[in-house]
């Protein structure tokens, strides 16, 4: 077993023996399920209305009417739930004074940060895979294209990984879990708001840079079915950068 595996196994064990993960998962799944059901009901109502009174050229399909709004809503839920999953990663270790033991162990900082990051990614991937029951159930009754949905899940995974890396960094900065959660929530909110700020600034270089820095534009493009390498690179580089920043924050603890 490599050091990363050891850390991941330890983190997963501690996550799954605590009821917190289950409660978060149940709330997440209930909200997503409700949103999916209400989007389906809305799509159905709109279809009935449009077929009666409007022309049928409207894009009456579940990809546009259900999954796209659902992916947007899940993104908002992730912004609240993922800081709760990441807040304890380093903050708890520091509070329980086990962080010194970890840092003085033969395991390197790289392995520690990677292991912690991987463990939350695994929990999050499990949550995401549970939501796949929504399109699977719907496919029994409705016709839709799977390709935008696969891409939507890629977007959800990358978005989640970015938010987790931000949470990882925030958790590495403090020993207080609440502060870590608020810090990561604030960073995520700030990053989200940059998109709106870019829209306000308008069609200028600054506006474009601000919009590009925000994940909104990249996430929106992916869930609309447009696979652009720049969006993938945005997420991958953002995750790598935040991972590196978290690494530096953990490393700094050794010489402070």
């Amino acid at each position, binding site marked *: 077993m490599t050091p990363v595996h050891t850390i991941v196994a330890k983190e997963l064990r501690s996550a799954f023996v605590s009821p917190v993960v289950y409660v978060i*998962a149940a709330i997440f799944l209930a909200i997503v399920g409700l949103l999916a059901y209400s989007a389906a009901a809305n799509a159905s109502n709109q279809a009935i209305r*449009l077929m009666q009174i409007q022309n049928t050229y409207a*894009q009456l399909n579940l990809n546009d009417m259900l999954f*796209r709004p659902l992916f947007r809503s899940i993104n908002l839920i992730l912004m609240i739930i993922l800081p709760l999953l990441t807040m304890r990663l380093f903050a708890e270790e520091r509070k329980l004074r086990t962080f010194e033991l970890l840092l003085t162990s033969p395991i390197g900082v790289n392995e520690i940060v990677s292991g912690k990051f991987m463990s939350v990614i695994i929990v999050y991937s499990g949550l995401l895979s549970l939501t796949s029951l929504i399109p699977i159930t719907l496919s029994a009754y409705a016709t839709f294209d799977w390709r935008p949905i696969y891409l939507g899940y890629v977007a959800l995974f990358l978005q989640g990984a970015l938010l987790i890396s931000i949470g990882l960094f925030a958790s590495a900065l403090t020993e207080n879990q609440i502060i870590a959660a608020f810090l990561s929530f604030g960073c995520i909110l700030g990053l989200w708001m940059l998109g709106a700020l870019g829209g306000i600034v308008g069609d200028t270089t600054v506006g474009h840079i601000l919009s590009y820095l925000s994940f909104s534009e990249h996430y929106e493009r992916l869930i609309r079915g447009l696979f*652009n390498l*720049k969006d993938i*690179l*945005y997420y991958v580089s953002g995750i790598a950068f935040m991972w*590196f920043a978290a690494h530096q924050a953990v490393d*700094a603890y050794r010489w402070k």
Partner: protein
Amino acid sequence: MASILGIAGTILVLIGLGLPLFQPAGGSLSSILLGLGTLCLLGYFAFHFRSLTALARTRSTRLGAHSLFSVLLAGVVVALLNFLAAKHAPEWDFSETQNFTLSRQTYQVLRTLPREVKMTAFTHEGSPGYGGYQDLLTTYAKESPLITLTFIDPERQPDKAKEYQVTRIDTVVVESGPQKVYLQRSSEADMTNALLRVTQDKKKRIAFVTGHGEKSLTDTESSGLSRAGDALTKQGYEVGTVDWQDTASHEAAVLIVASSTEAVSVEHQHRIRQFLEKGGRVLVMVDPASGDSLDPLITPWGIQLGAGILADEQDRLGRGSPTALLVRTFTTHDITEDFTTPILFPVSRSVTFDTAQGKTWEYVALAQTSPESWEETDLNSPQPEFTAGQDPKGPFTVAGLLIPKPVDQSPTAQSAILIVGNAAFATNGYLTYPGNTDFFLKAIAWLAQEDALVSLTPKDPAFHPFIPNPSQEQALVFFQVLFLPLLTLFIGLSVWKRRRSL
């Protein structure tokens, strides 16, 4: 004093660095701020020289600076990578509607746009057309720097909707210079044609024939054609009536004869034929109320109109009268190629073609009633009913198109005649029915040879309505809302209970 210098210096330097981003023109102010900030910081360092050099020698400062520098360097690398990707990254369209992929012809049109075009979409997020418009229009805007795109929610900005005279949600106004075209669906062909139309300086003229009891363009009653006139104006045409005194009236792209109730004079018949010989195009709409007043005009073309009224038990409007035809059978033609909505023809006559009489014409039956239709010959009957042996059985043609036969394989004049056995479908009372608007505007566009601008293969509109029955709804509620969260909670409770018992 020293600390104030440090704070002021930092703030001034930051403002000096950030100012050019927001105000590219204000270069001198930025330099002044940077200069002042640097002076303040130098002052601060001078005051704290000893303590700063001592601090710089400590291990934690060196390591901290190294760490900060590493993060900044990583940030620069990430920024450079993203900058390159933003410029050159390829993309693939995985959307169901392929709304991000434009045709080769559209790219050609976008590359050769002669002037700026403004697209204003009146829609909002909850509207069914929003997604399609967002995908398609942003793709257009991305491909051409001459296109500016604005989304307006007509409920939040009613003044804008009023200014543009937009009364229906999901309307796009394409404008350039004095030209404006209104569109109500996210079709690439319509959008590209609109771009071409608004960037042309000359408007095509659609002229309504008058003087023989025709339906009037200025009549705002339900039997009038004011809405048809407005719809054509919004499509970028110049709309008016035929001035019989003006010999230049043949410059019109299309002549419309909207159900004359009096016989068209011989002179005017001659003028219409002259118009056709010069390659003109004519739309003739005939209500049963016209009687035989238009026969002298249309008989030489080989066209005959049924004496009775068409009735259809199968394709009719709801449970209404069988004479309210809901025509949904179309021949493959440019005018009707992507029709999915039926056309409502109230009280129609059948259109037939006599090949012997109309030797020089080729006939295309565009729209037909169902085989369950019949021609009601007893016009005094209060309730139309099929009488075997008396009423002819369908299907009947309601709209037919005449185009000249090619002579000696050589191309002939581009004249055409569209005959519709009904005029009411285009009146104020019925034009708002979606199929009617589409048919009327598409027919005029084809007659005005607008479709010759760009003819794109229509994309699959991705029409997959989802209407679950009650048992399916229950299954959705169970699997999506209850099953997974409860299962997760149950597992969580079991784990918690087991841990407590340890």
